[in-house]
């Protein structure tokens, strides 16, 4: 709860204070606010502090943050703070971008905490609408415009489907509160006795969420929008939207646990398709951004495997994976943004990096290893936990997932070719520039979490 409040207030502050100031001024403020929110909710989840009174103020059956949810809240807050901190600001006046980003983060929080379909819906919308704007925030760049309109149209479309699903579920179960729904379903018990409405509703709602997390048949927006939108926004989308989406997905599927045996087989199919598709499609990509987009699709596939495991007990695995994913993705997008130039936004941008900037090389290598899931990075640890828990449900799917992560080497390591093979004359002058401390911190984190993985389990 505290997280939402702080971030929301911060957002409003940034919007109004920075109305006609350059973005740079607001940067520190906003990242500080986010950091504060992160710390506070972390402390709350570790039950060092508690904000009972605040939480009571909110209607319990609408939004309710469990300890686990708070971990996610703090993670997202930190990540967004990092994103805002490390990405360069735009020159023109007006800090609305930062404000919008923080607003949509509040939406993400609402999704995470939502215990009621209305709240879930609102969360999704509050997350999405600012993002539509942010996607197009590079006003005079046609690609950005296109990204915005594509994202908007498809987003709105999927929202409509999602809502239809809500309606059906409402009709079928007679309630909108997730806990209420799960209660009623557990009474009904037997699968066949459920009204078709609920099944249809679940399918439609899931479609909406699958769209948000860009799972296979509903992934089409991701590559294009990722490519078109400004790097900062892309990063935000790739990390925050996906993680929030999955937490929400997990929370709401838990309400339908009675249907698990039915939906999990569909989820397995989806997961396998997504993994195969994402990885294979990524191989032939030319630009770094699209490659990362497809890799994020593949990761959505891995995470779908999480949804078939007993989720309530395993939320920490989802958290571990989110941490791994967030850390490496942000770092990689950062380097992509740093080194891409007007004419070169393919892998060539890294040519000769080893020669010009060794520390950058090492950071990139570690992040790539982490995202590819190679020991002893957190990427491996998370994958290990995820796959082991999913193995019990469906070994075959895990086998395919392993194969997928083997294929993923093919495109993750593409970067090494230009990096290590000594560069030709036109070396990228951006290589020389220094790298922010935050990036070092994140990479270090991905090693530390890799070496001491039990931290995750302990925290939950």
């Amino acid at each position: 709860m505290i997280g939402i409040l702080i971030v929301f207030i911060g957002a409003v502050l940034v919007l109004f204070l920075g109305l006609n100031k350059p973005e740079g001024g607001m940067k520190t403020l906003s990242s500080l606010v986010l950091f504060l929110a992160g710390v506070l909710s972390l402390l709350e989840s570790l039950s060092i502090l508690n904000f009972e009174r605040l939480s009571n103020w909110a209607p319990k059956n609408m939004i309710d943050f469990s300890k686990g949810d708070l971990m996610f809240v703090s993670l997202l807050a930190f990540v967004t703070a990092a994103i805002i901190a490390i990405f360069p600001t735009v020159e023109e006046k007006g800090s609305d971008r930062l404000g919008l980003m923080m607003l949509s983060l509040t939406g993400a929080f609402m999704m995470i905490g939502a215990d009621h379909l209305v709240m879930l819906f609102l969360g999704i919308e509050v997350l999405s609408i600012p993002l539509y704007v942010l996607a197009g925030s590079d006003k005079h760049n046609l690609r950005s415009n296109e990204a915005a309109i594509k994202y908007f149209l498809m987003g709105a479309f999927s929202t409509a489907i999602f809502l239809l699903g809500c309606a059906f579920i409402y009709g079928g179960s007679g309630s909108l509160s997730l806990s209420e729904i799960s209660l009623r379903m557990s009474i009904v018990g037997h699968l066949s006795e459920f009204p078709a409405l609920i099944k249809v509703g679940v399918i439609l709602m899931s479609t909406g969420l699958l769209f948000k997390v860009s799972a296979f048949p509903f992934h089409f927006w991701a590559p294009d929008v990722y490519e078109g939108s400004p790097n900062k926004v892309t990063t935000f989308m790739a990390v925050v939207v996906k993680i929030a989406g999955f937490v929400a997905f997990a929370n709401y599927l838990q309400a339908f646990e009675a249907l698990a045996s039915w939906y999990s087989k569909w989820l397995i199919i989806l997961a396998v398709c997504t993994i195969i598709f994402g990885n294979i499609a990524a191989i032939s990509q030319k630009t770094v951004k699209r490659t990362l987009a497809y890799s994020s699709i593949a990761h959505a596939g891995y995470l779908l495997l999480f949804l078939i495991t007993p989720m309530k007990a395993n939320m920490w695995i989802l958290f571990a994976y989110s941490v791994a994913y967030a850390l490496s993705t942000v770092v990689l997008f950062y380097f992509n943004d740093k080194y891409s130039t007007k004419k070169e936004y393919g892998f060539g941008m890294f040519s000769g990096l080893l020669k010009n900037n060794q520390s950058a090389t090492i950071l990139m290598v570690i992040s790539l290893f982490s995202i590819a899931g190679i020991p002893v990075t957190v990427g491996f640890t998370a994958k290990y936990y995820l796959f082991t828990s999913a193995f019990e449900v469906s070994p075959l799917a895990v086998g395919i997932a392993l194969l997928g992560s083997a294929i993923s080497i093919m495109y993750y390591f593409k970067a090494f070719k230009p990096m290590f093979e000594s560069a030709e004359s036109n070396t990228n002058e951006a290589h020389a520039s220094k790298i922010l401390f935050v990036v070092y911190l994140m990479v270090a984190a991905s090693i530390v979490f890799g070496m001491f993985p039990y931290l995750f389990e302990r925290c939950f």
Partner: protein
Amino acid sequence: MLNIFQSLEISHYIYLSCVLFCIGLFGVLFRRNAIILLMCIELMLNAVNLLFAAFSEYMGDKDANGQMFVFFIMVVAAAEAAVGLAILVMVYRNTRKTDVSFLDSLKD
């Protein structure tokens, strides 16, 4: 006259809103003009509203959640429409077009 309304069952409402929804959906699929797409999406949302209202009514007065939801949807739809139109205008400024099928510079 009156008994017609009594003879209406929830299923009728479901079918109706489904039909509405599908009209909107096919509109989205088959029209090119962004504004019309927006309208179609609104239509889909309204179909959902109708459904909610119907369900809420069907469940009697013990549960007003549905109607509440309808209001939220309306509000959000309005916000969405505002943002959407803003984006449209931006696009229109840059490319004197509102036809989405021309926007295909982003692809593999």
